[in-house]
C-alpha cells in the first residue's frame, strides 16, 4: 500500500544501517518516547541491527500504560451507575484498576461498549436518549482533537446525554518531568510522530535547547525509525542538538492548526497524574468552563476510594526508562499478556508486552 511498502524496503534499510555503523563512534543512549515506535523497533528487530555503541530505551509514550489507577477506578465507578453506558477504545478493557477491570465489570452486567471512534460513541448517545453515554477520554495530543471534535458535534446536534471522562495527557511536559528527575541520561530523543502531526515540531525545541539533547521526529515504518536514528547519530557526532523531522510526509513544523484550534477551544491544561512519573503540572486537560456540562466527573457523583497498586509490578520504573521488563520478577511468570498484572503487559504498545511477544527479557 502506498506510503507503507515503500518505507519497508530492505535494500534501503541496509543503506541506512551501514551508514549508522560507519558514523556512530560515541556510545549513546536514545529513548523512543512513543509506544508505537517501541512496537516497530521490536517487530523489525531494530535494536539488534544497530551498532554496539547505540543503546535504546523505551519511554512512557503509551496512554493506556500511563493512566493512573485512580483514574481507572473512576471509570469503573462510573460504569456502576444505572443507565450509564461506558464507551471506550478497546485498549482499556483489560487494564486492571485497583480492584477490577472494565472487562470484569462488563461480565457483571455493566454496559461497557468498545468503539473505534468518538463518532461511534456519539451515535450510541443519539440512539439511546434515555441513557447517559460516558466516553473514556484517554490519549495524547494525537487523539485529543478527535474528542474535542466530538464535543463540538454533540453541541451542534443537540445531543445532551454524551459525557467524557478526561484522562488525556500532554507529552512535552511529561518529557520535561522525566529529564528534570535526572534518573535517566539521554543522548537523543525519538519524538512521537503522530503527536507531532498535531502539535508540530516546535514544542520539542526546549529539549534540544535547554537540555542539549538531539531530537528527531519519526514515523512508524522501519525506514522511518532507521532514518531517525541515523539523524540522531549525525547530530551527536557533529556535537549538535536541534529538532529535526525525519517524518516529513506526515509532520509539518507548525502542526495541524485546525486540530490545535479545536483542542484549545474545548480544553485547558491542568495537573495530571502519570503512572510512574507522578503528578505533572499542565500535562493533563480538562474541559473549559463553556463545555463543563460534558464533564462526567461533574455530572455524576462517584467515590472510587483510594487507589491500590499491584504488588511486585514495576511498570512505573519501566515507563521512566530506569528499569526493563527483565528486572520484574513477575515477567513471563505471574504476568503474561493473557493474565496481565500491570498495564505495560496489557497494552500492545507496552514495554512488557513488546518484550514478551518478541522474546526478549527472558532469563537464560
Amino acid at each position, binding site marked *: 500500500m502506498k506510503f507503507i511498502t515503500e518505507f519497508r524496503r530492505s535494500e534501503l534499510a541496509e543503506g541506512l544501517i551501514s551508514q549508522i555503523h560507519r558514523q556512530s563512534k560515541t556510545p549513546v543512549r536514545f529513548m523512543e518516547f512513543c509506544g508505537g515506535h517501541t512496537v516497530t523497533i521490536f517487530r523489525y528487530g531494530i535494536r539488534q541491527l544497530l551498532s554496539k555503541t547505540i543503546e535504546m530505551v523505551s519511554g512512557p509514550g503509551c496512554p493506556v500504560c500511563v493512566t493512573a489507577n485512580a483514574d481507572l477506578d473512576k471509570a469503573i465507578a462510573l460504569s456502576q451507575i444505572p443507565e450509564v453506558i461506558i464507551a471506550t477504545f478497546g485498549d482499556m478493557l483489560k487494564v486492571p484498576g485497583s480492584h477490577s477491570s472494565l472487562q470484569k465489570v462488563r461480565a457483571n452486567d455493566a454496559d461497557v461498549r468498545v468503539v473505534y471512534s468518538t463518532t461511534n460513541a456519539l451515535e450510541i448517545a443519539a440512539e439511546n436518549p434515555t441513557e447517559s453515554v460516558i466516553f473514556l477520554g484517554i490519549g495524547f495530543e494525537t487523539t485529543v482533537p478527535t474528542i474535542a471534535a466530538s464535543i463540538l458535534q454533540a453541541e451542534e446536534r443537540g445531543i445532551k446525554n454524551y459525557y467524557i471522562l478526561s484522562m488525556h495527557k500532554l507529552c512535552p511536559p511529561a518529557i520535561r518531568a522525566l529529564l528534570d528527575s535526572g534518573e535517566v541520561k539521554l543522548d537523543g530523543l525519538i519524538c512521537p510522530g*503522530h503527536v507531532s502531526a498535531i502539535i508540530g515540531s516546535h514544542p520539542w525545541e526546549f529539549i534540544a535547547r535547554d537540555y542539549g539533547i538531539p531530537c528527531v521526529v519519526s514515523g512508524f515504518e522501519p525506514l522511518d525509525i532507521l532514518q531517525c536514528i541515523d539523524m540522531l547519530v549525525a547530530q551527536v557526532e557533529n556535537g549538535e542538538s536541534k529538532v529535526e523531522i*525525519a517524518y*516529513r510526509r506526515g509532520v509539518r513544523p507548525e502542526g495541524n492548526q485546525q486540530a490545535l484550534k479545536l483542542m484549545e477551544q474545548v480544553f485547558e491544561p491542568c495537573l495530571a497524574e502519570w503512572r510512574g512519573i507522578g503528578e505533572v503540572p499542565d500535562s493533563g486537560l480538562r474541559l473549559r468552563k463553556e463545555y463543563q456540562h460534558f464533564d462526567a466527573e461533574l455530572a455524576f457523583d462517584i467515590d472510587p476510594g483510594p487507589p491500590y497498586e499491584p504488588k511486585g509490578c514495576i511498570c512505573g520504573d519501566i515507563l521512566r526508562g530506569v528499569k526493563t521488563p527483565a528486572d520484574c520478577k513477575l515477567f513471563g511468570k505471574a504476568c503474561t499478556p493473557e493474565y496481565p498484572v500491570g498495564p505495560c503487559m496489557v497494552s500492545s*504498545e507496552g514495554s512488557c508486552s513488546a518484550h514478551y511477544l518478541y522474546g526478549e527479557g527472558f532469563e537464560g
Partner: protein
Amino acid sequence: MCLAIPVLIKSIEDKEAEVEIGGMICRISLWLTPEARVGDYALVHTGYAINILDQEEAEETLRLLREIAELAEGEG
C-alpha cells in the same frame, strides 16, 4: 495508541470522506482537515483524518534514502 494509517480519499461530502481501508469502504471525519481534497492521502486515527500526507515530501525522503543506499553499496 497513536496509530494512524495512510488512506486515499475517494469522495467527500460535507465534513466526511469515503476511503478504502483494507479493501473495505469506510467513512472518516474531516473535522480536523478541512483542506482535504479527493485524491489526497490522509493519515487516519480513530476515524478522523489528522493530517494530509505530503506526497512530494514522501518522494524526497525516498530519494534521499536511495542515495544513502547507493553510497553504502559503493563503499561496501
